[in-house]
């Protein structure tokens, strides 16, 4: 293979790695002007995001360890855009006095996880899968405990890394069994002579937990809320979208492509997990006081919806999941963006503190409103379309009971989203959050999110395009 072609196929990973290196160098070069590092990170991510919009050739590199196609490129693109937004939202926080000395580390770590995700998505064998997963996880634990002055940040870090380590241990056990049963670490060479044998099922379940942990599917989700609460809020938002998204994408690829023959095993698995996840996530979310915990549980419930797309196991389901993820990036980052700004400016993170927010900060409240409604799946926001396609893909398998449970859960989720809306718009407060002047980047991030949420649904072409990619992919 031509080296240039290889680089083009690897462009995302290569550029990201380059960006990390530039950031580290910049750390040395910047001296006192640390804020410039933020601009570098921003520019870099913007460029990478734009490059990821272009379609790519199908390609297999490194003897099958790296697979690239339009689908993986699309997934990476979604993650890139999400990361770009997160970085936009982070600038303000990173520029705080206590964080600014570690600016480049912050971005370097974040982008290195993105590299991990990128390799994870493109992985063609279990080794790359494992290393990608770890690379996508481990630096995040450090980022979770980034606020070294905060005890709960450290606690978040330890919970994150311990859970992650445990889960990767369990998952590795499963992988080792799959290796034994399938005879290869390459996805393309795996072959099972008895798919429904107990060991295959056990191995699959064990393997599945590693990703379920990342996606925060019940009952592997418990770390989520604590870590989201303790971690710096930008990291929480990164967790809730990127980390989740990457794991979801690779799960989609593996289940639908690699284990497509084993659908009889994982279809019921997805059924159970999806129902349990959305129900438990919702039940927990409706009593949360802290906005980060609240969004954590909400994202767990959302994860329950997302895996509905897996259920059908066909390209429509893949499309639905990816499409929803795209929408979810904007919706969740919109909500987190508002929470970030408020937390950064006032340090307030409780839903109670949001009382009367609309009076003082109408703009922020509206963004929050739109984001929450999009998450809840209210038309004409993009979240509605996303959910609809997920439900439709599940219904295409005739599992209307599953869809019914999901739609009822969507109603339940509306309840707690409305609680926040109520706090902002209806409740009065003696001590409301003062009017906040928005910084350019934060504002920009919110605007991107709003545009995403409002516009995506109206353009059916996006969905159709993804469908074509998905058809080609499977």
């Amino acid at each position, binding site marked *: 293979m031509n080296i240039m072609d290889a680089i083009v196929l690897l462009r995302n990973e290569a550029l990201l790695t380059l960006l990390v290196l530039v950031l580290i160098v910049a750390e040395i070069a910047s001296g006192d002007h640390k804020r410039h590092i933020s601009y570098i990170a921003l520019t870099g991510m913007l460029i990478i995001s734009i490059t990821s919009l272009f379609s790519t050739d199908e390609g297999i590199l490194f003897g099958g360890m790296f697979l690239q196609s339009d689908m993986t490129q699309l997934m990476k693109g979604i993650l890139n855009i999400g990361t770009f937004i997160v970085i936009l939202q982070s600038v303000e926080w990173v520029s705080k006095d206590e964080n600014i000395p570690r600016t480049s580390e912050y971005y370097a770590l974040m982008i290195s996880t993105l590299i991990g995700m990128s390799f994870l998505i493109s992985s063609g064998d*279990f*080794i790359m899968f*494992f*290393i990608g997963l*770890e690379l996508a996880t*481990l630096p995040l*634990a*450090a980022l979770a*405990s980034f606020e*070294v002055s905060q*005890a*709960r940040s*450290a*606690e*978040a*870090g*330890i*919970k994150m*890394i*311990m859970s992650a*380590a*445990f889960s*990767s*241990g369990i998952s*590795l*056990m499963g*992988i*080792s*069994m799959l*290796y*034994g049963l399938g*005879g*290869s*670490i390459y996805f393309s060479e795996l072959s099972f002579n008895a798919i429904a044998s107990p060991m295959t099922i056990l191995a699959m379940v064990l393997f599945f937990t590693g990703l379920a942990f990342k996606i925060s599917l019940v009952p592997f989700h418990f770390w989520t*809320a*604590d870590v989201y*609460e*303790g971690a710096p809020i930008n990291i929480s938002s990164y967790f809730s979208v990127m980390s989740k998204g990457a794991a979801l994408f690779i799960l989609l690829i593996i289940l639908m492509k690699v284990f497509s023959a084993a659908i009889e095993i994982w279809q019921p698995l997805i059924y159970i997990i999806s129902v349990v996840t959305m129900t438990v996530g919702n039940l927990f979310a409706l*009593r949360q006081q802290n906005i980060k*915990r609240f969004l954590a549980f909400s994202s767990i419930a959302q994860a329950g919806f997302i895996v509905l797309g897996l259920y059908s196991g066909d390209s429509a389901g893949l499309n639905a999941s990816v499409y929803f993820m795209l929408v979810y990036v904007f919706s969740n980052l919109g909500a987190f963006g508002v929470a970030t700004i408020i937390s950064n400016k006032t340090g307030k993170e409780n839903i109670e503190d949001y009382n009367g927010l609309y009076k003082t900060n109408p703009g922020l409240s509206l963004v929050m409103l739109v984001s929450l409604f999009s998450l809840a799946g209210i038309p004409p926001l993009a979240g509605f379309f996303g959910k609809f396609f997920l439900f439709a893909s599940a219904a295409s398998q005739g599992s209307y009971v599953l869809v019914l449970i999901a739609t009822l859960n969507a109603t339940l989720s509306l309840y707690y989203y409305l609680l926040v809306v109520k706090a902002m718009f209806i409740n009065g407060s003696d001590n409301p959050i003062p009017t906040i002047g928005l910084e350019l980047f934060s504002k920009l991030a919110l605007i991107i999110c709003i545009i995403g949420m409002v516009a995506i649904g109206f353009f059916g072409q996006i969905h159709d395009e993804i469908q074509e990619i998905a058809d080609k992919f499977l």
Partner: protein
Amino acid sequence: MIEGVGLNHFLILSGVVFFLGMYGFLSRRNMITLLMSLELMLNAVNINFVAFNAYLNNDFLQGHFFALFIIGVAAAEAALAIAIIVLLYRKFNSINIEKSNTMKH
């Protein structure tokens, strides 16, 4: 491949070690011992990979390399975990895992 020793013997060994490690991880209080339990689990997995490689897929060294990379990752993991444990120790003055439960419900 060892003469006279079946694949299942390896698997039983690794299984026992894995679940002992799991028990340790779930029941001990000191974070460092937790970490050690984790190493037990990873070690057990390594044994698995090696055994499968040797007994079933001896054409290539896939299991062998997998184990190698697991060791590498385990090292990184351990290093990071220890850094966080040290940080935590500074905050809580304890490395009892049960003490770090300020965030719940």
